[in-house]
């Protein structure tokens, strides 16, 4: 490596400073929510809202949140949607990708074209809503699982992975007398565990964080996914509150409950995030190269 010039050194210093700034700008809002959630509600609202550490210490916010039955219903529903949805997503995506990665399958190109076409053209919100409605799926658990059963970009990631596997393995299995089902289950799936893990994570995170299908298709509050429950707690009436100048104690508690709710609902995701991050990055790379 050549010696760095003075200009490069100055740049390096500024670059490090700037990126450290980015680091703080990303972390601070999250820490702020955490600090506010364990602060004392009344103290928090008596002074300015600039927090560098928790103000007072009070866990009653969390006690209130944990007593909120809606939140638990949302949690339960979302766990169900995520598990059932991801299982369906992954199995359908694997099947689709396996079938359409077979060499020489008559009609393959037509089906592939028809699938890729849907990435650029979609029916739109209202006609899709009407299809769901006419299938009598409104307010059913299936409404949050079936309409998004295959994500076409995940399908393409899986497809390109299958295409990259050596064809000899499959030929050998065929000679041993395996039919296509057996080849898929005993040869292809064990070989593609890493890729399956990536798309499973993609689907799971999508289910966990999605709120739009719930907003469109679910009216029954007992079937609300977590994100819709959160929307009710965090956002409803936020505009009205803005006219309020002074906040009494009850309101202060209500406000800090919001912070505790944010923490409670995001912690599971942030706990697994460090472990799944590199799989995600891998997925972006595969998608980028093939896409």
């Amino acid at each position, binding site marked *: 490596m050549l010696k760095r010039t003075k*200009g490069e050194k100055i740049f*390096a210093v500024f*670059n*490090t400073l*700037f*990126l450290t700034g*980015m680091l703080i*700008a990303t972390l601070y*809002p999250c820490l702020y*929510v955490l600090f506010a959630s364990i602060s004392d509600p009344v103290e928090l609202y008596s002074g*300015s*809202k*600039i927090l560098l550490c928790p103000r007072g210490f009070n866990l009653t916010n969390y006690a209130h949140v944990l007593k909120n039955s809606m939140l638990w219903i949302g949690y339960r529903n979302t766990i169900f949607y995520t598990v059932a949805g991801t299982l369906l997503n992954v199995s*359908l995506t694997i099947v689709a990708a396996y*079938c359409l990665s077979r060499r020489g399958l008559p009609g393959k190109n037509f*089906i592939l074209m*028809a*699938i890729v076409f*849907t990435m650029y*053209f*979609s*029916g739109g*919100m*209202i*006609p*899709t*809503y009407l*299809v769901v*409605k006419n*299938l009598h799926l409104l307010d059913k658990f299936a409404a949050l699982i079936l309409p*998004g059963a*295959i994500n076409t970009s995940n399908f393409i990631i899986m497809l390109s992975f299958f295409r990259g596997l050596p064809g000899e393995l499959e*030929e050998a299995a065929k000679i041993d*007398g395996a039919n*296509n*089902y057996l080849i*898929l289950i005993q040869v292809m799936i064990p070989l593609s565990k890493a890729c399956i893990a990536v798309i499973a994570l993609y689907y799971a*995170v999508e289910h966990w964080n999605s*709120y739009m299908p719930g907003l*469109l298709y679910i009216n029954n509050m007992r079937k609300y996914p977590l*994100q819709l429950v*959160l929307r009710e707690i*965090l*956002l409803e009436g*936020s*505009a009205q509150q*803005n006219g309020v*100048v002074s*906040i009494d104690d009850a309101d202060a508690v209500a406000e800090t409950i*919001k912070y505790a709710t*944010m923490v409670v*609902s*995001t912690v599971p*995701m*942030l706990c697994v995030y460090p472990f799944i*991050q590199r799989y995600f*990055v891998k997925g*972006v*790379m595969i998608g*980028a190269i093939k896409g």
Partner: protein
Amino acid sequence: MKKIGSELSGTVQTAMPKSKLKLLREYHEIYIMLIPVVLYYILFKYMPMVGNVIAFQDYSITRGIFESEFVGLKHFSTFLKDVYFWRLLRNTLMLNLWSLVLEFPSAIIMALLLNEVRCLAFKKTVQTVTYMPHFISSVIIAGMVLDFVSNDGLINSVINRFGLETVPFITDPKYFRGIYTISGIWQSVGWNSIIYISALSAIDAGLYEAAAIDGASRWRQTFHITLPGLLPTIAIMLIMRIGSMMTTGYEKIILLYNPTTYETADVISTYVYRQGIRGAQYSYSAAIGVFNSVINFILLVFANWFSKRTNGSGLF
């Protein structure tokens, strides 16, 4: 044993043309497995596309798609005369333009800056932390944003600290685009930089060495090696971004806006949502959706044409 024989003959014969029956026998399991997949795409992707005919009808739930009366372009002309038409079009384009001008380059700059970092541990830390907001749901992000910019929130506390008046960020339409774009950058800059970082790592290191030997400064290397190396990726990402211009972001807008900020925040997709789902005006909102898709398609084709003309690479 018999089965193995037939499979074997199937593989031996590959050089010769096969009869339809033979092909069907060889692939019948594949076709059986494809049934649910094809069914899914027909039901949830192609049926809605066909369902757009209701944009040209006075659709009623009871009469269905086949019995409803055709009214031609009535709903389209109603939309063009809608009092909110220009506001919706302007907001849709402006919000996307803001994010195109500010959010889109921010990821490229982020990748370029990260690329210059020598300390690997620092680089990894910055990456891990800035990817994180991508995993937080939009509902939580909207909740945080609205809390920070509220009248007694963090931002206004800072403003007050400097002795300035409280700014009504949430209710004043003036600030919506800024709030939307800045929170968008916060949420996506790290994640969107991944693709550029991987493109950067694919640039041949020999080019830099050669340039350094020729006495090119880092600046010149950035301009003559790094940026040209990134250009194809940037072009593709830009086309894809423009191609989704009319539909992106409305999920976040629904969470962030409120009637007082419709003036700058209401976009075509959110209007479709309110008219169609809340107001049950299916035909009218489907027509608006079709209008939106047409504009989107024109933008996509235009972006692709422009990219092909200027740097030779396009999406199709």
